[in-house]
């Protein structure tokens, strides 16, 4: 997931061009970029195009909109609704608790051990959680998990009295917070680091309280990055596959698991391209979230100036 891309870095060396060095690039100069572009073309652009085109084709390769209209029906539509609910809910939970955690480490020593541990740990969970996270959950609140057993033996509460919730949507929500909160820390920390202590001092010297500081200074400054992070978390949860796949082996409550069904062959004959339509649907949802984010940050960049 991209955030406000911190990419357009200042180019060193200034705008003046030395003659010869960077005039009109020769044909040979273009050749250097060929290996990279060819590689990306084959392994990134080609598969993507295959999905996008396949979404509009039937099994014989003829143009059709049936795949896409199917997205708005029955199980597929339900899966999209559930995926969006799951992503939105875990994005909100992740953003709130993540922001609190970020604040707690941002006010501490910037080179301190605590901060290093939280940032590195967040990186692990946010990026590389995947399958291990699913097993972490089985060990904790699975049928024989530590917490499950403790509650059953010592408190008399059966976590699974109602249903096998860990393997359904509530379980996914719980597991997802374990990579959403850390992701928030990573995305939101630079914004909190950007708050200058002088602002706080200025607020205090003018007789302001903590409340006035957050109401009139910190809050307004942090709102755009907070909303941006929220959208990023949404896109992240929406794209996530590994944890859910390891946890849910029966049924396909969410879109990524529906797509798994198409890839592992549990498909009605003649509907193979429906999986590609589901993929297209996912790309559209993720692109909307990220597009709104880009617009938001652009606006903000304008009015900050």
């Amino acid at each position, binding site marked *: 997931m991209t955030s406000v891309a911190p990419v357009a870095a200042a180019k060193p060396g200034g705008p003046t061009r030395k003659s010869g060095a960077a005039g009109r690039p020769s044909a040979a100069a273009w050749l250097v970029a060929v290996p990279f*572009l060819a590689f990306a073309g084959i392994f990134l652009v080609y*598969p*993507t195009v295959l999905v996008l085109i396949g979404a509009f084709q039937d099994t014989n390769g003829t143009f059709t909109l049936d795949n896409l209209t199917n997205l708005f029906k029955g199980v597929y539509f339900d899966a999209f609704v559930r995926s969006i609910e799951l992503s939105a809910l875990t994005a909100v939970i992740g953003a709130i608790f993540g922001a609190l955690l970020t604040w*707690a480490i941002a006010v501490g020593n910037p080179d301190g051990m605590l901060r290093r541990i939280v940032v590195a740990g967040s990186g692990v969970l946010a990026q*590389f959680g995947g399958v*291990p996270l699913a097993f*972490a959950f089985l060990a904790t609140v699975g049928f024989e998990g530590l917490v499950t057993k403790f509650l059953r033996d010592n408190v008399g509460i059966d976590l699974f009295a109602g249903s096998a919730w860990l393997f359904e949507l509530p379980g996914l929500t719980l597991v997802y917070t374990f990579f959403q909160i850390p992701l928030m820390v990573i995305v939101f920390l630079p914004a909190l680091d950007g708050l200058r202590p002088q602002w706080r001092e200025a607020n205090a010297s003018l007789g302001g309280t903590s409340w006035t500081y957050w109401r009139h200074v910190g809050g307004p400054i942090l709102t755009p990055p907070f909303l941006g992070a929220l959208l990023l978390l949404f896109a992240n949860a929406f794209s996530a*596959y590994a944890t859910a*796949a390891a946890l849910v082996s029966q049924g396909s409550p969410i879109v990524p698991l529906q797509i798994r069904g198409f890839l592992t062959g549990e498909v009605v004959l003649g509907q193979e391209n429906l999986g590609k339509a589901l993929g297209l649907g996912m790309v559209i949802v993720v*692109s909307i979230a990220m597009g709104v984010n880009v617009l938001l940050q652009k606006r903000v960049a304008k009015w900050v100036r």
Partner: protein
Amino acid sequence: MGSLVKQRVLRTIILLVLGVYFILPLIAMAEFSTRGKAGERSLDSWTSIVDDDGLMEALVNSLLLSVTSAVLMLVLLVPTMAWIRLRLPQLQRLVEFVCLLPLAIPAIVLVVGMAPLYAWVNYFFGDSPLTLTFAYTILVLPFAYRAIDAGLAAIDLKTLAEAARSLGASWFTVLWKVVVPNIRVALIGASLLSVALVLGEFTIASLLNFDTLQVQVNLLGKRNAGVSIAVSLLSLLFAFVLLFALSYVGQRRRQTVAEEEIPPGSN
């Protein structure tokens, strides 16, 4: 000073509550993976990690893949990105777009398009799991791009290159003896990130039917949860050590490191 005390109390509460929330599963994993058959403590799950041939083979695959993917990523990106800054600024936007594109396309969608492509890959290169190098290099592009771009932005590439060229260095020498040593830290950062990402990758490997660490862990979990949980704990800790090391490598650029570590959705 009342607000400072309040701040300290609030901070402690947040750290305690969330600390327990995140550490509890780790403790549970340690507890679960050391359960014996008769309710005693036992290290059976841990020792059987080494005994499980399938698991060790998968681990070797994943370790090899993490190296090959990092190498391919560096070979493709470093010359291209340096060259673009020096001679081909026209391509800047295109390359940036391509590199960040994997962020907009979930791995689960990418693999749908890669499945037919890999029929060809396996036809030409055999069906070794190492062919996943191609897919993984794509997955690490956004993170590698950001790290290397930050590294290149921090040096005066044009002046360095012109100095070297005026002394008669070839472009290859410029790249190898001037660019690479100067952005060493960024390259290490990019490599560590891609190693960690490859070791944790599950989506593409499992759906293209290749045996990697995470695929085996998932498979194993169906019959022996203890071992899977032990390996999971181990791989989380290993990734932690990698990223913790990264926080020291990137010391000079602390602000940018935080921004680089933005997730791919390997979850």
